[in-house]
């Protein structure tokens, strides 16, 4: 730009041109900030608007999940798992149950496997919709957020019909499921899926080619595939870097091998790729749920073994055998054979791993959760240091940190 000629100096101009002394400034983002999902505190050291150092500090939502589990029966751990990733509680429920069943050596009924997949994929959609909506919202796109949440509400309604709870589902029991699908639920789900597809495309149309959105997302929050692997990234955040790792494909469980679905991959490992991977996964979830619903076999949803599963109530009230089994299962818990197990499922944010140790009693000796969000949050400084402060918000959104899961 050319120097303005003959321009009379304006009042205060000298101050504008004066050398501004800059010094590093430490700013707290959170813990009580709407953009810091849950209550995480980000201690950010700024040089102007550039982030020199970022230090995520967790612990504000710590509940002692792992220790609490040691004091209750295996079944009573289940409500605690709801509170891990509370946006997609079903996947925590089923993941935990799957690990316990692996430790016991149980094969659950086929129909239960189908329903577990259906529930998981529905909640994966809810999780991704929340994430995508939140990204839009926090970058100023309120309408996209509303569309996403409208779609999520449909899913929450279907999950409520299935489990009886909007958020803390506590669904499933060791050995299968505590209840079958409600009447007419399948049709409702199919209708909801149609509506969700429309809403999803609306969100897609509003955001994916939106200039403002793309400018803020592309090239920000970048992490290289090797770094992501080193940090232990899994799930959409890892796949956005182009690494093809999905537990459903790598270590198939339940009925995933029977389903036809693709694993969407990104290329650049930036915020935009993480966003677009989630949009694509929404489409895959839709495919999977429709397939699973069409293949859903009849049959029981839970095993018939009174050492594992509560007897039917008429047996409990009417026969000594039933009341004994009920009493022992409630008071002492399922006697899980002594041993240890690692088992993982693909949760919304990546590999949800369970390391369980049993001493042969009714309560866990040790429960450790490998929460996907923990490793990803640890990688945030790597993604954001040297970048602008404004990039922190979309980065924090697209990693989809869930406080309940990271801090347990």
């Amino acid at each position, binding site marked *: 730009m050319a120097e303005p000629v003959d321009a009379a100096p304006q009042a205060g101009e000298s101050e504008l041109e004066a050398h501004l002394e800059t010094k590093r400034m430490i700013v707290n983002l959170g813990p009580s900030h709407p953009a810091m999902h849950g209550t995480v505190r980000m201690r950010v050291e700024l040089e102007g608007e550039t982030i020199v150092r970022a230090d995520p500090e967790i612990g504000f939502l710590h509940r002692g999940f792992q220790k609490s589990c*040691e*004091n*209750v*029966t295996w079944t*009573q751990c289940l409500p605690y798992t709801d509170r891990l990733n509370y946006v997609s509680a079903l996947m925590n429920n089923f993941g935990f149950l799957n690990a316990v069943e692996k430790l016991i050596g149980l094969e659950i009924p086929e129909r239960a496997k189908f329903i577990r997949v259906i529930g998981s994929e529905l909640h994966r959609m809810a999780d991704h919709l929340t994430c995508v909506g939140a990204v839009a919202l926090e970058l100023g796109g309120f309408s996209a957020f509303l569309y996403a949440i409208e779609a999520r509400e449909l899913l929450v309604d279907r999950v409520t019909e299935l489990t009886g709870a909007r958020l803390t589902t506590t669904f499933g029991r060791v050995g299968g499921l505590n209840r079958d699908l409600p009447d007419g639920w399948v049709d409702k789900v199919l209708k909801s899926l149609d509506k969700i597809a429309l809403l999803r495309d609306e969100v897609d149309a509003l955001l994916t080619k939106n200039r403002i959105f793309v400018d803020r997302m592309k090239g920000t929050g970048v992490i290289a595939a090797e770094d992501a692997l080193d940090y232990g990234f899994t799930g959409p955040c890892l796949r956005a870097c182009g690494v093809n790792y999905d537990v459903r494909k790598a270590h198939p469980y339940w009925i995933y091998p029977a389903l036809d679905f693709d694993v969407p991959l990104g290329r650049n490992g930036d915020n935009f790729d993480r966003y677009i991977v989630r949009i694509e996964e929404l489409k895959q979830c839709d495919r999977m749920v429709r397939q699973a619903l069409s293949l859903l076999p009849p049959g029981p949803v839970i095993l018939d*073994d*009174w*050492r594992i599963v509560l*007897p039917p109530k008429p*047996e409990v*009230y*009417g*026969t*000594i*055998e*039933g*009341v*004994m*089994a009920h*009493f*022992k299962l409630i*008071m*002492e*818990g399922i*006697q899980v054979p002594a041993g240890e197990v690692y088992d993982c499922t693909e949760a919304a944010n990546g590999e949800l791993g369970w390391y369980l140790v049993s001493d042969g*009693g*009714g*309560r866990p000796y040790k429960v450790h959760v490998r929460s996907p969000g923990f490793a990803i949050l640890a990688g945030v400084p790597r993604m954001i240091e040297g970048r602008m402060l404004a990039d922190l918000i979309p980065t924090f959104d697209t990693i989809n940190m869930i406080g309940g899961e990271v801090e347990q």
Partner: protein
Amino acid sequence: MSEKEQPKPAAAPPPGPPPKPQPKNPGFVTATVDGREVVVKPGTNMIEAAKTVGSEIPYYCYHPRLTIAANCRMCLVEVSNAPKLQPACQTPLSEGLVVKTATARVKEQQRAVMEFLLLNHPVDCSICDQAGECKLQDYYMRYDHKPSRLEGSKILKSKRKVLGPQVVLDQERCILCTRCVRFMQEVAKEPQLGLFGRGSNERIDTFPGAALDSNYSGNTVDICPVGALLNRDFRFRARAWFLSSAPSVCTGCSRNCSTFVDFYGQDVYRYRPRENEAINKSWMCDHGRLTYKELNRDRALQPLAGRGPDARDVAKAEAAKVAATKLSALAGTPGLAVAISPNCTNENIMAAMSFAKDVLKVPHVHVSGRPTGAADHLLLTADRNANRKGLEWIAAGFGLQVKPFDELSRGIDGGAVKALWAVGGDVPEDLGAFTQIASRLELFVLQAQNESRLGAVADVLLPASSHVEDEGSVANQDGIVQRLRQAFPPKGESQPHWKWVSDLHAALGITTTWASAREVWRALSNRVPELASFEWDTKAPPAREARGLKPIPAAADGRPPGYREYGAPRVRGI
């Protein structure tokens, strides 16, 4: 083909039994149980032999301290020298025998036995005291876990037959193992129970016109594997899984039977005998069993200063100050007497005697305690005080003369004794008469666990905690020293005698190093030769033994809900 048939040779005599194998380990029997070699003394049965290699054989009727009945059929196992399954309780191990305890045949047998036992068992778990510590529940989950196949109704029998002052019988729940019958016959030697009727009408009962009134009837409740025999005192008072257990000692007489104290919050609900080969085997008497009530009711919980209507609540420190000042003013005078109860633990007695000897400078102590009763043929002794032996040892070790209690009451009556420091509120005489006498005292400092008329005539009442509220040790009449463990912290404002003595010292400006019963032991037990060799720490049983059903704990260490280390616990109703 005209070959003639050869006449058959005469049939050879059948081979005799195979020669007995030479013992692999001379003097012992060597056999194999579940693929593992066991070496046991001849005559050992299979249940005990299998235990040594970690194979558990289930049983109902077998009890190691009773004769073998082999009627429950739960312990049938597969053995190499018999085609049929054999009862493991009744069959001694023989050389070279191969025993299998977990084959499909055995498991099917166990399942079938469980099914039969449960066929007529009432649906009672929710109202049964035994629930949570019931062998039927345990074994059902382990060996049966199948639904009922009963069609029609169950056989009805007497549901609440009162057998005696302590025991009530639910005949429907009974599995007819006859443990109780055998116990009364063989251990208590008072055969008051029998088996009557046949088939489905068979039942346990007392003989016509007789009652189960033995002093050992409570043990039949303990050994009943199901909820048929119930203790009338404990019935419907607590659910077993809410109770915590601490190993302790019964202080009902000088036998010192090892017990578990079952408690909830700060209330004791029952004593159960704890295995002790040297003293009580697996048993205890009904008299001792009921002494737990003293720990709950009429407890002195608040220090009082002033006599009769002048009595007022005071803080611990003030009470100790008043008592110490008044007592020490009389130190060394012949009018001052000290009475110590032989129901106190060694630690309390040592602390009290050290104060009596070194501060109050008395030459002798009087022994209080409960009045003597009648001994019986098994465990109960005439001396109803737990630790007389320990008191005598300690008095000798401290150089104090032990004098009987009646000398004290005569002394007070005659005016020779004007001041008394009593550690423990029991008196071996008529309480009313002694209260009359004690009211003439010029100074009466009483440390008592329970409220009584005696407390009303004391100038200072210092509430003492009970033996289950602190660590400690006691010596029985045969000189066997046992450790007892703390179940819960002292109730109210009470504290152990040694702590009061420590406070008395402190009120006089004398520093003691006692912060716990253990430190009292460490500081003073070296003055008592009989106690010096007792290993106070290593002889302690584990503080809380998990037993039966493990409840869902309120705290990680199994303490009851509402338990707090400091301050009064929040005790919920049961």
